[in-house]
């Protein structure tokens, strides 16, 4: 684990508890809830995709908050990961969406239910 402590700048294992951690986490939860509700309610694939991005960002925000709380760089690290994954996923997913649109001329996710038994 890479910690700030191991880098020698801060006293080890002293959780800095900023007062606004709750605020940050609440923001993350709100973001996540918006994303979730959006994902569940919209049928437009692009909007659904945007909703997932929202949930990603909520997770990233939570990571940053906890990383700050434990003075641990792992949180930051995960954010980089999430951003990378999100970017890669965006490329793939948008490509897929375009492909699906071409097949059925619609962006509705309900047009694709082949996985049903």
């Amino acid at each position, binding site marked *: 684990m890479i910690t700030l402590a191991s880098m020698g700048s801060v006293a080890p294992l002293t959780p800095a508890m900023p007062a606004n951690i709750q605020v940050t986490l609440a923001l993350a939860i709100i973001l996540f809830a918006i994303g*979730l509700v959006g*994902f*569940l*309610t919209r*049928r437009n694939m692009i909007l*659904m995709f945007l909703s997932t991005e929202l949930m990603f960002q909520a997770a990233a925000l939570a990571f940053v908050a906890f990383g700050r709380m434990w003075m641990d760089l792992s949180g930051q690290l995960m954010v980089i990961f999430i951003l990378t994954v999100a970017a890669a996923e965006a490329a793939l997913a948008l490509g897929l969406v375009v492909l699906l649109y071409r097949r059925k001329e619609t962006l509705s*996710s*309900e047009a*694709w*239910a*082949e*996985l*049903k*038994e």
Partner: protein
Amino acid sequence: MSTVAIIALASAFVTHATAHTPTASMEPALLTTLALALGDGAIAAADGHAVDAAHAVHSTSGYADVGPLHFVKAVANTDFAWLKWMLLAPLVSVILCGAMAMFKVKGRLPALFTVATFGLSTAMAIALYFQFGPTLFATHAPLTVPFMDWLSLTWGPGPFQSFTANLGFYIDGISMLWMLFVTVLATLIALYASEYMESDLKAGYARFFFAVSLFVTSMLILVMSDNLVGLYLGWEGVGLCSYMLIGYYATQPGATAAAKKAFIMNRIGDLGLALAIFLIWTNYGTVQYDSLFQAIAGSTSEAVQGGWSKAAIPFLLLLAVCGKSAQGPLFTWLPDAMWGPTPVSALIHAATMVTAGIYLLARMAPFYTVQAIGPEWAETALLTVGWIGCFTAFIGATIACGQFDYKRVFAYSTISSLGYMVMGLGVGTAFGGVYYVFTHAWFKALLFLTAGAVMHGMAGQVDFRKLGGLLRVPGFRLTMICMLLGCLWLATAPFSAAAESKDIILLTALTSHVQQVQWMGWIGVLTAGITAYYAFRVWFRLALGPVKIEPGADQHADHGHDDHAGHADHAHGGADAHAGHGAAHGGGAFHPHAPGFRISLVLTLLAIGSVLAGLPSYLAHSQGFNWIQRFVQNSSAWMRAGNSEEHGQILGRDAHSTLFIIATTVVVAGFLLAWILHAKNRALGDRLRASMLNTTGLKWIPLGSEHGWYVDQFYNAIIGVPAWLGAQLLAFTDRFVIDGVIVAAIGRFPGFVARVFQPLYTGTVQSYALTMAGGIGLIVAWVVWVWLSGGAS
């Protein structure tokens, strides 16, 4: 040729009469001479063999106790390494014939190779007799010759920590005797078959000789091997050849079924042999004859240990004998084996292979002594052998009386004769048993070959009711005379070779101190009478009376694969004979196809051989020993046979003369009965049979006899059908219960569980997401609940 037989018969009579004259005079000195002449005395006196002691002990103890056993240790001699060529010569023929069968060579080449290599083996067997015989008879030491490594394992230094069963040769009297007559008869019969099988030149000729060559190879391995596993190799090898040859007419369902039956029946016997080998090894630590016999000879009856594992050996061996020699409960395969071509019936199912059981009994005779298994078991084992043989001899003879297929009559007569031989060993005369093997080999081969010649000529007609007067049919006279000779010998006509040998068995049985053995003897006498009846029943029907020929079309005729349908290419007028098998009935178009030169030659030679087979007895007086007995004396069978020549009395009279009178009377009675019912007044015979069939109380006699006392049906009902049903049940269970119900139930369980949750899977992305969210919600709720209830402290 008939003159030859008659002259031989006459000379036999004279010789025999001179040999037996002193017996009647009851003079003790002359009796001793006779005992010397027929018996072991000459040898025993000459070399101080321990056999004398056996006689002394015998009179006071049970008949299984032959006194101290003594075996001369075998001498290894690599000078006889050439013996391997005896095996390899037929093996070469196997390979060549096999190759010719594969490459579909159509010609007489296979027969040529077979006869030539068999001849070579014969020459070597004779050479062996002259080179080694004198040494053997002088020193009594068997010969061992190493050949090649086969099965040998060593896992420790101790006595029970190695298992050696290499291919090597152990030559003593009985193996030499078997080698001699097997090779000689095989050569003759192969020569006969070269003509007999000619109709198959385009089909199975090479295959036939392939199997025959393989048979001779296996048979020689069987008798020459120096250990039990090698014997087992030959034992199963001859079984395989028998299987291949019985099923030779492979398109016939009957033939393949018969072949299968023979193999399986033999396998039951083989199981006995295999288990006996295990038992022998675990008790003695060796399966090599030489060390085995030394081990047994070294033990005494008091020291017998091992309980059942030793006592079971002779019975398991007997099971093997029952399989191979068609004895006791396993006899039913032999009649069906007649599906094979007739030369095969002659060679394998009459003369040689089926006597392998007798060879095994003689070879393993030491296991039937008190030294090997203790007094009670030894006697029980011997009595069992005797009863099995006696019972089979009787049953076989009774069935033979009811058959109309002359080949099957001879088959049942073989069973009966083999029963005699087994009985001989059971009652304690290995000499008698082995001697009968020898004489029987000749005359039974002769009988089968004459039967084959008739079948060959009559388009496969095997029902003697449809033939008659063949003695007057041109070309068949020699055949019928040879058959007459064979029937006389089979019926043990007085002074015939067969009578000489069979009488030794009966004599031993009737003079025994054991009551049961005497009963066996009397049943044997009765059987001799029945034998005379059925033998002449066949001959009178076939040879005498008005000429009647209904050509057969039933056997092997529908496929062009048979022994006769292909005769169109013969120079003889066979073409029209076979033009329409079914249609030719009753028509004048059928011309019997008389045997050619090779068949006649072989028949003649066999007839001479049959007559000469009695020579050892005839010459016994002048030479001072019986030739065959000398073989037996110098073999492992001898210690069982020590008592065979010391005869007491029968019915209070001198044994020899009494037996002679009784046996002659019985045989003549049987002969006369056959003459009345089947020659003089056939209508009477037919009426008798018809009236018996119409009488409720007597119906079972002719019917039962004709159907082999329904033994096959009985086995089928008590073993075959239940086993088949059980197997079906098992197969059903396996497929539908284990695999179908249990496995399927386990396999379906996940699917069943899945079906409960299936409504969740609608295919829409949102519903999956909703499920996920719901799942997360549940987890969160659970965590919160635990937190609130303070469980996570």
